């Protein structure tokens, strides 16, 4: 309980789901063999942190920002650039991670102090403008960033499949650097999530909730609203940058479409909404559902199409090419039946 900062997930059902997801992710390499499954599990770990950090901003502080992928990108490009210029080493990863997080914190501080005084809609617009400007810069400064092609870089051999740690296989899994890399991502993500959970359940988090509800009242009680909001922005930016670094270390590649695009921003928003705003645990549920759907819906539909051959209309509707249509239907249904998100619905405070 202490580990969860006294914030229980809620009812028994949601607790059971979360424990299952935790076990699933912790044992992913052994339970779901194959590169694709492991890749999906790592993506889920990274996005849990990214979505949780956005939930801190949107769900707890009530701040709408469109710059979250930008901070994610800072972390990712930080690792990519240092690995590119310093060569493959753990030092490069460390320095890249730290400098990405630092850059994210400074920019978040600047944006926050300059623009969190204004009305929410203007802040959202400013973040959108800054994020677009950064995306354009990254794609134009191709000498440094590789432009639209992005950067491929090397990470220490100890974290790649080339490094074997044992001659035997454990439950059919080769003990190599890739496995170590997955557990690096998994454990960092777990720690970051617990830290975020701690933050929202601290006195600081309580003030954020108060500000979200009634900022004038919070101010009249004696809290400087702009500082608390800026603090939330900086913390969530740093967490997003750290998630970006993990993602870059896992992929060994960064590019505008994987870490900076506006589509990722929309994915994050959807994951927060599907999981449940202002719940933290919603980030876990939202990220798992969304990324599984993104990765496996197409395959499932292919199977269904094959099974329904010969029936009228249905095979056409279930054509794998139409997977985005069904993804959309899934979202509409989830928002319709779970307006407060899945976790919000199941915990009902």
């Amino acid at each position, binding site marked *: 309980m202490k580990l969860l900062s006294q914030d229980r997930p809620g009812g028994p059902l949601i607790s059971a789901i979360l424990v299952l997801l935790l076990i699933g992710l912790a044992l992913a390499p052994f339970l779901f063999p194959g590169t694709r499954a492991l890749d999906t599990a790592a993506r889920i770990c990274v996005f849990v942190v990214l979505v949780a950090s956005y939930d801190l901003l949107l769900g707890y502080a009530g701040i709408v920002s469109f710059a979250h992928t930008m901070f994610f990108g800072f972390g990712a490009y930080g690792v990519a650039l240092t690995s590119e210029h310093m060569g493959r080493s753990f030092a490069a990863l460390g320095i890249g991670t730290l400098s990405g997080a630092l850059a994210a914190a400074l920019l978040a501080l600047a944006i926050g102090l300059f623009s969190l005084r204004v009305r929410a809609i203007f802040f959202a617009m400013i973040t959108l403008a800054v994020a677009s400007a950064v995306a354009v810069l990254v794609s134009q400064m191709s000498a440094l960033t590789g432009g639209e092609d992005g950067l491929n870089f090397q990470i220490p051999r100890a974290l790649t499949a080339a490094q074997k740690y044992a001659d035997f296989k454990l439950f059919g899994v080769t003990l190599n650097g890739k496995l170590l890399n997955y557990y690096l991502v998994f454990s960092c993500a777990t720690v970051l999530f617990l830290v975020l959970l701690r933050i929202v359940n601290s*006195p600081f988090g*309580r*003030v954020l*909730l*108060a500000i979200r*509800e*009634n900022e*004038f*009242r*919070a*101010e*009249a*009680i*004696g*809290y*400087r*609203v702009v500082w608390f909001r800026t603090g939330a922005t900086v913390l969530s930016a740093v967490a997003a940058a750290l998630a970006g670094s993990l993602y870059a270390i896992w992929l060994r590649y960064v590019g505008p479409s994987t870490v900076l695009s506006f589509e990722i921003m929309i994915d994050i928003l959807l994951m927060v909404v599907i999981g449940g705003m202002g719940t933290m645990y919603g980030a876990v549920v939202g990220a798992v559902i969304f990324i599984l759907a993104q990765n496996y819906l197409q395959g499932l539909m292919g199977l269904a199409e094959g099974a329904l051959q010969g029936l009228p209309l249905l095979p056409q509707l279930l054509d794998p090419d139409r997977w985005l249509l069904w993804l959309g239907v899934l979202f509409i249904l989830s928002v319709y039946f779970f307006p407060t998100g899945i976790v919000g619905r199941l915990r009902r*405070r």
Partner: protein
Amino acid sequence: MSDPILTLKGVHTDIGRYHILQGVELEVPRGGVTMLLGRNGVGKTTTLRTVMGLWRARAGQITFDGRDVTALPTAAIARAGIGFVPEDMGIFTDLTVEENLILAAASGPLSSDRLDRIFAAFPPLKTFWKSAAGNLSGGQKQMLSIARAMAEERRLYLIDEPTKGLAPAIVATMAAALRDLKAEGAAILLVEQNFAVARLLGDSCAVMDDGRVIWSGPMAELAADTALQERLMGLSLEAP
């Protein structure tokens, strides 16, 4: 009124293009209850909000305990020792009663001593301690709102219509709580339309009209003089 805790000198406040306060002169003595009376729309609530810095005074000076607070940020004014209970109560409906009170103690943890006093004044708050404040009844919300101002040592309370729309039984609880607060020696500036409560609690009194204070003096004097009431507020306060 030699050493008032709060002084307003020639305070003008505009809301948009409306000139609401037109030179308010007001002194709130240390200890005791000062009633702020007047018809609707004469600027009583605006006066309280201007003291808190929620509206900014365009001209004039506000002094709290010898310190000029006219230009301070709202949060700093609150931390200087003024507890504000707004008309809309402004409780955090999504948070629990407990969380509302913990938040109110902005400068440190809530002392159990104060909590006991709050529970003694408002027993329902203990009953609903862990439930969401949004589910409280109107009277209970008002109790929470006042309890929140009491969560910390304040030297001055600004309370805006605490009995508005409450059942008579709850009005009595509220009046008793305000009397306890007064007995502790805090100064209270109270906007109140319920004249029975006003007469019961008030020591001194200021009457506003058209954005100015037009009369101030001891409450007993106003209460005893129906002609004066008639002249100041255009109605007899003894009317039902």
